[in-house]
């Protein structure tokens, strides 16, 4: 019986239902930190909560950890209601942005703190501390004090201190934001590997979209206390559900327009003077949409390349910036709209003011229902 009831579908491990949390500002206003959030998260998923500051991502993390209360709504973890438990009874652990290591305890005591509080005997504790430190690549530094470690090492100790308790969910509150770029990218990969190895759910908060795209199984894009989109990095990047997501993740060229014709293979969207072909279905003639093209979806045509099977835009080059392997081209269409294209290869022959032929595939054109 109990076996049958303890079964959890993969994406039902952590459930957030209609989570609402409003804050009163000193000025008498109300900030909707969470405004009816619904989430279903699987047992071993790497989930990133992504959004600009003030979108509610950290509030949600704090509520799951037990440091903040919910006005209304429900959160269950592994079929267990979380909200009635105080923070120290929840089977979750947090990696804090500022690490929050205990400055008066050695690294070993820091990592072993949760085990000691839980009553784990010393021999087992010592062994598990060693394993956790090894997992984060810091074997053998048990005796040192946190103040004797670098920022990156403190970060790893904070991680070890959390995972040693084998939490059901590991909460990470922008843990990489204090590290330099090189170390941050290294840690992103290590975190992802660690999560795969442990097989537990990671709930990672960040405002850095690149970080989110690199590590996550799925990304939750939050804005103004609402979920804008929940999807895999590819879905979020190529099929943003809203203009906000399109603008927030990566760079995008967005055209506002109206569907003028549709058939079984896609639709034509009139955006001012431009007619853009998309392979998106389910569009109805007359409906207002926004059309999105990523800068890297353009290719530059010259006399030697043909545009077979491709759509072509004509634009005037305004600026070309060399960004390593690619060139970032800022162009202006005849309609006056500015577009950005990222093209590979040599572009030294290009001159400002020169007309360019930018080709794109109608399969890459993504449409977003326009909201007015």
């Amino acid at each position, binding site marked *: 019986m109990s076996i049958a009831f303890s079964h959890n579908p993969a994406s039902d491990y952590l459930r957030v239902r209609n989570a609402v949390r409003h804050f009163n500002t000193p000025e008498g206003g109300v900030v909707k930190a969470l405004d009816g959030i619904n989430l279903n998260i699987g047992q071993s998923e790497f989930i990133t909560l992504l959004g600009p500051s003030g979108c509610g991502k950290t509030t949600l993390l704090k509520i799951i950890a037990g*440091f903040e209360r919910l006005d209304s709504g429900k959160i269950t973890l592994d079929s267990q209601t979380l909200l009635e438990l105080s923070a120290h009874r929840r089977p979750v652990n947090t990696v804090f942005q500022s690490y929050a290591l205990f400055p*008066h305890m050695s690294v070993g005591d820091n990592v072993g703190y949760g085990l000691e*509080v839980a009553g784990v005997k010393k021999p087992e504790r010592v062994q598990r501390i060693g394993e956790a430190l090894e997992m984060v690549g810091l074997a053998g530094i048990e005796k040192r004090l946190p103040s004797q470690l670098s920022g990156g090492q403190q970060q790893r100790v904070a991680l070890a201190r959390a995972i040693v308790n084998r939490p059901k969910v590991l909460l990470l509150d922008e843990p990489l934001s204090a590290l330099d770029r090189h170390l941050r990218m290294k840690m992103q990969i290590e975190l992802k590997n660690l999560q795969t190895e442990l097989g537990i759910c990671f709930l990672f908060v960040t405002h850095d979209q690149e970080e989110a795209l690199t590590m996550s199984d799925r990304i939750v894009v939050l804005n103004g206390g609402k979920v804008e989109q929940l999807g895999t990095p590819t879905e979020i990047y190529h099929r943003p559900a809203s203009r906000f997501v399109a603008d927030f993740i990566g760079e995008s060229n967005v055209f506002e327009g109206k569907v003028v014709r549709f058939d079984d293979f896609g639709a034509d969207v009139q955006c001012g003077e431009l007619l853009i072909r998309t392979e998106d279905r389910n569009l109805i003639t007359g409906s207002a949409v926004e059309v999105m093209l990523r800068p890297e979806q353009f290719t530059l045509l010259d006399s030697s390349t043909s545009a077979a099977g491709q759509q072509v835009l004509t634009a005037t080059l305004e600026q070309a910036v060399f960004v390593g392997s690619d060139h970032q081209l800022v162009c202006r269409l005849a309609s006056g709209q500015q577009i950005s294209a990222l093209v590979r290869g040599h572009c030294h022959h290009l001159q400002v003011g020169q007309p360019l032929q930018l080709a794109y595939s109608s399969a890459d054109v993504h449409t977003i229902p326009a909201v007015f």
Partner: protein
Amino acid sequence: MNRSLGKTLLTGYGWLFFLFLYAPVALIVIYSFNANPINVMTWKGFTWDWYVGLFGGATTVSESSLYVDSTDQLLDALLTSLKVAFSATVIATVMGTCAALAMARYRFRFKGFYQALLFVPMVMPDIVLGIALLIFFVGAGISLGSTSIVIGHCTFLTSYVFIVVSARLAGMNPLVEAASADLGANEWVTFRRITLPLILPGVIGGALLSFIISMDDLVITYFISGVDSTTLPVYILSMIRRGIKPEINAIATLMLLFSIAIAAAGIYFKSRNTAQ
């Protein structure tokens, strides 16, 4: 040229400043070894007699010239002072630390008002506090004695502990307490394992400060001490009424040494670990 003149003047001023502060103290220490029993300020020769006399030892000076009526009384007063200071310190340290924790960690109505109330005893004139306490004790039917002195001292010592511990709490990352809760520790375990060790230098510093202030307090204690509970400062005052005698210099020197030792310990504990 001008610059070096200014520097010389400033250095001179610095020395004069310290001379002004410490010359009287230095004189007391020097004259506590003066062998002249009649005129304390006329140097006659070096002697340990006053120290020996304080503790009832045989001295070369005649018995009549000693102002300490009996060593027993002096030691009684010292014992009362130590007992009062110890009790008041323990109580004030616990209350002051609790108050500081409450102010630093919780939000509640009239918090600013409570905070102001905690500062008031420090700025209130001693004489006002002394009279107020006396009226209170008499009105409440509490007999004056060691207990009333301890209660009286706690009223202002709590403020000192509160301020020292609050400063220490302000420098502590409150997230470490959240981290402790996150790792499964309840509030008591968090306090014992995390908060207390981190604020301990402040708590010990506040306790030592309380101890010296309590040992040293004269004005308030004078009002609220009973006949059989004289503290050392009150006793010394009564000795001085009958003229300044060399023993007083000796007592003052001993108290000075004691205070310096406690203050040094206080500074040591207050500054320990603050580098983190």
